[in-house]
């Protein structure tokens, strides 16, 4: 079988993320979408702090490394000065919703045509599995050994709910990137629907930017290492608990890119 080479991805899309993590999948989709739209040569990626930092090793595009949470500010400045370029950022839920929520909100409110991809694995992954603002109620992390207490910490932050109050956002979507396990008699198979949906969301987010709109896509994924689960259990968790806290939704599609 012939393996298709993507000009924007190094080494056939092989990444060094933990086994079972969907982060690499997201990067692959971004690379594929850049190639499909023919915008690899004019893409500028802004990295954040967390596991998403490693993106620069796997996507062969121009790269600027932002401080923790500040990627939307950097993306905004680059886009304002380089209007014909495609500027996108990959952030984690800790980066975008904890330390960097101010930068995200203001960039979104200004509606500067940039694209933010947020990989939401409900913990701080890179630092070893501490509680994030997105951690679901009762989830045990290294800083909430008895489970997240929402009386003290509040309920998990919902990025799509927060951002849907800003009128200048053009594309706002939440998808699940974790493939759904399907149990048959003798083995486990994985659904491909999630991957197809995620790729479509990436593509549509870029299309929105090309039509001068701000786009934000949240990907619900796993972090089996820090959840201290097996790969299979983590994928089950996303589809049993994760989707209840973060139901997939198309919250905004101002240009109607979904239908096209």
């Amino acid at each position, binding site marked *: 079988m012939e393996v298709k080479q993507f000009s924007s991805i190094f080494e056939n899309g092989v990444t060094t993320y933990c086994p079972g993590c969907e982060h690499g999948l997201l990067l692959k989709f971004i690379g594929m979408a850049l190639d499909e739209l023919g915008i690899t040569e004019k893409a500028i990626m*802004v990295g954040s702090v967390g596991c998403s*930092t490693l993106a620069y090793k796997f996507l062969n595009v*121009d*790269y*600027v490394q932002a401080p923790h949470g*500040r990627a939307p500010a950097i993306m*905004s400045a*680059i886009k304002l*000065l380089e209007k014909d370029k495609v500027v996108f950022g990959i952030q984690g839920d800790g980066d975008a919703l904890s330390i960097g929520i101010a930068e995200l909100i203001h960039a979104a409110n200004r509606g500067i045509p940039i694209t933010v991809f947020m990989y939401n694995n409900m913990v701080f992954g890179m630092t070893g599995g501490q509680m994030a603002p997105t951690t679901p109620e009762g989830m045990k992390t290294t800083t909430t050994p008895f489970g997240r207490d929402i009386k003290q910490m509040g309920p998990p932050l919902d990025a799509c709910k927060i951002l849907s109050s800003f009128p200048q956002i053009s594309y706002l979507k939440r998808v699940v990137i974790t493939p759904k396990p399907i149990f048959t008699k003798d083995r486990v198979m994985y659904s491909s629907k999630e991957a197809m949906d995620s790729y479509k969301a990436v593509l549509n987010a870029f299309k929105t930017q090309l039509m001068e709109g701000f786009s934000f896509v949240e990907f619900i994924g796993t972090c089996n290492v820090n959840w201290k689960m097996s790969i299979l259990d983590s994928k089950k968790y996303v589809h049993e608990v994760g989707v209840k806290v973060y139901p997939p939704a198309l919250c905004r599609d101002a240009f109607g890119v979904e239908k096209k």
Partner: protein
Amino acid sequence: MGAKAIAEAAVRSGLEAYFGYPITPSSEIMENISVLYGEKRYPWFKVFLQSASEIESVNMLFGAGAAGYVSMTATSGPGLSLMAEGISYAYASEVPFLIIDVNRGGPGLGNVAPEQSDISFVLNSLGHGGVKPIVLAPHTVQESMEHVHKGFELAFTYRIPVIMLTDALIVHMYDTVEWEPPYIVKPKVEWAARGRNYGPRHIINSIYLDPPELKGNKEKLLQKQKEIDKIAESECFMCYDDLDVLYIAIGISARISKEAVLKLRKKGIKAGLFRPITLSPLDKNSILKYSSHAEKIVSVEMNEGQLAQEIMRITRKDVEVLPYLGGYIPDVEEVAEAWK
């Protein structure tokens, strides 16, 4: 007004992007620049944006610098504290921009009167991990204008954040200035992240996970610092002979001290003033030369003696401090009296 002069100088020198957050006493710079934005005379001035915080400002500067554009902001002490993170990242990633720090009274909220209490912060601790930006210290409105231009040039020559350290008095002062026909700073930016454009990719990065890689980057920065050390500049006013007293001052304190020196010279007292023009790098050779011929060294500053510390570290000589705290400015008579 100083702020207007700085704004004009910046835009005429080729400012392409201004990002700022209001803070007294620096806001007038931003206000004056906002008026110039959109004027047909300055087609290169592409972006003016009021950010949501100083954290956002500095990161927007970082973005503009990473894409190879001439950018600046003006702020004051509390804002500069917030910017320290971004400056550290910019220093490590070799991203150029200019920050004007209009020094106000500190620490904490302090007050909005002029002080020179950010010297130690700017020179020694502007961000984590060992950061050494270029620091300029103008003492007149005229020099402020020249330093803005010079700041852009230095930032792009050495790919480094440049801080112009000034104070509330200079920025709010009315003064006569002369502006030479402008010449625009047009940096060459093959390294900038503006898209691959069918060539190799550009990486503006400060993460080096392997110790040998990080060591390599630090050594590269230190090597660059050796080149930067060569641009050290200073002025020694009336330093003709063996001195009875050598005053040391920057900014508005230097301007006032010059008057005191002239007063003393009229009385026959051999006084001089050493004024660092670049605070970092500090002109070590000159300060060693002039201080070795001086009976007494007096540092006139609007803080508890931060500049004196830097001078003592180099000269290993006692430096008497004449401090003005809380927003008081040096008095010519008092400065002159301090020679005894």
